[in-house]
């Protein structure tokens, strides 16, 4: 009795087993078939893709020929990644591509867009090829989807990372360039500040200035903030602290070019302006510094 009861179950189990075996016919075999398909239709699919890119008005910064050339390399790398399952080459290519196209103003959504388009173009070609055999199409898509998603991910992440790297580098460069401490006369330093000052940059400015005072044995420093449009209370406070720290090193600080907004900020935070030497513009600041240092500037003709 018991045996009879059990046997249909077994049959079912076996059926299922065969089914899974068929389904999970090594994904690599399916992928190989897929790759062969993509290789065979390389030219046609590539053209289709390039056409769709132009149609969707993506990569407008590039010419048609360039798009086609890039499409070819992306396509080949894509197929290779599908075939080998390794993404290093594709990653390297994505980074390299990003490096070339970022300076031309290509946006993240465009890059993501073209990769998704390619995914779509290839999926459509698979539909067309296997539309008669639905189960096979299903299995092919099972193999294709994860790989394609991973590829799209890799390219997009590569692009964004490259962008971030470039932004970081530029920030670094701006930071380096943006805090020059210049000696214009014996014992007179000028510190022109341009752009936005965040707390980190403010700190760096102070450090460089104090070090500059020491190495150049400066007695007077002119800090020109004509190029600073606005300043929050923290940074304004920091500026005042910088002035005081410079005084402890024996240097007088003259701040020039305060904009009305910054003047307002400084008044609002209630800084004691008695100790702060301010002059309207850089020229006036330098003139006052020269007076403090005992220089007298005269026209050559008058001097004679």
């Amino acid at each position, binding site marked *: 009795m018991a045996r009879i009861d059990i046997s249909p179950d077994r049959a079912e189990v076996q059926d299922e087993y065969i089914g899974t075996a068929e389904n999970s016919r090594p994904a690599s075999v399916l992928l190989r078939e897929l790759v062969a398909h993509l290789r065979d239709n390389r030219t046609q699919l590539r053209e289709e893709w390039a056409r769709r890119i132009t149609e969707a008005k993506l990569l407008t910064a590039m010419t048609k020929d360039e798009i086609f050339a890039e499409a070819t390399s992306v396509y080949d790398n894509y197929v290779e990644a599908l075939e080998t399952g390794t993404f290093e080459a594709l990653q390297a290519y994505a980074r390299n591509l990003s490096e070339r196209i970022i300076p031309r103003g290509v946006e993240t959504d465009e890059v993501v867009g073209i990769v998704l388009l390619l995914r779509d173009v290839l999926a459509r070609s698979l539909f067309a090829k296997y539309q008669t055999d639905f189960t096979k199409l299903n299995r092919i898509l099972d193999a294709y989807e994860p790989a394609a998603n991973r590829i799209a991910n890799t390219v997009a992440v590569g692009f964004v990372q490259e962008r971030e790297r470039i932004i970081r580098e530029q920030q670094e460069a701006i930071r380096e360039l943006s805090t020059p401490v210049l000696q214009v006369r014996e014992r007179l330093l000028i510190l022109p500040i341009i752009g936005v000052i965040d707390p980190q940059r403010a700190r760096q400015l102070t450090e460089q200035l*104090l070090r500059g005072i020491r190495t150049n044995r400066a*007695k007077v420093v002119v800090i020109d903030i004509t190029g600073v449009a606005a300043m929050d209370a923290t940074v304004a406070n920091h500026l005042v602290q910088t002035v005081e720290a410079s005084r402890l*090193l024996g240097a007088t600080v003259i701040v020039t070019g305060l904009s009305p907004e910054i003047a307002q900020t400084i008044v609002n935070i209630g800084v004691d302006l008695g100790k702060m030497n301010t002059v309207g513009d850089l020229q006036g600041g330098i003139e006052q510094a020269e007076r403090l240092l005992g220089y007298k500037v005269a026209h050559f003709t008058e001097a004679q």
Partner: protein
Amino acid sequence: MDVPILKQGDFLIATIQAALTDADLLRLRTALVQQVVRCRSRGVIVDVTSLDVMDSFASRTLREVAQMIRLRGAETVIVGIQPEVAFAMVQLGLKLEDVATALDLEEGLAHLSQRSTSSA
């Protein structure tokens, strides 16, 4: 540790060579205020080049030294505050208001000579 006080012409020079305890600082204050009249000095220089920390007590004592010496008819200059020390002091609100400061000993001497010639 006592701070040596040297007489150099019209000026007294006290060079702090290591971190001082509060008691040392007070002794230095007393010694300077006594000697400035005894030596008929017109100026006092306190050199803090080797200090890498300046706490509130030290800074207040230096300020008191400057004020007391002014009352005794001379001028004080603090010289050699390190950049890091200066910024740390400012952040702690220790600004040494109305005390003259100079970059180093040479600058301090120049400052005092200039003062005495202009007032003389």
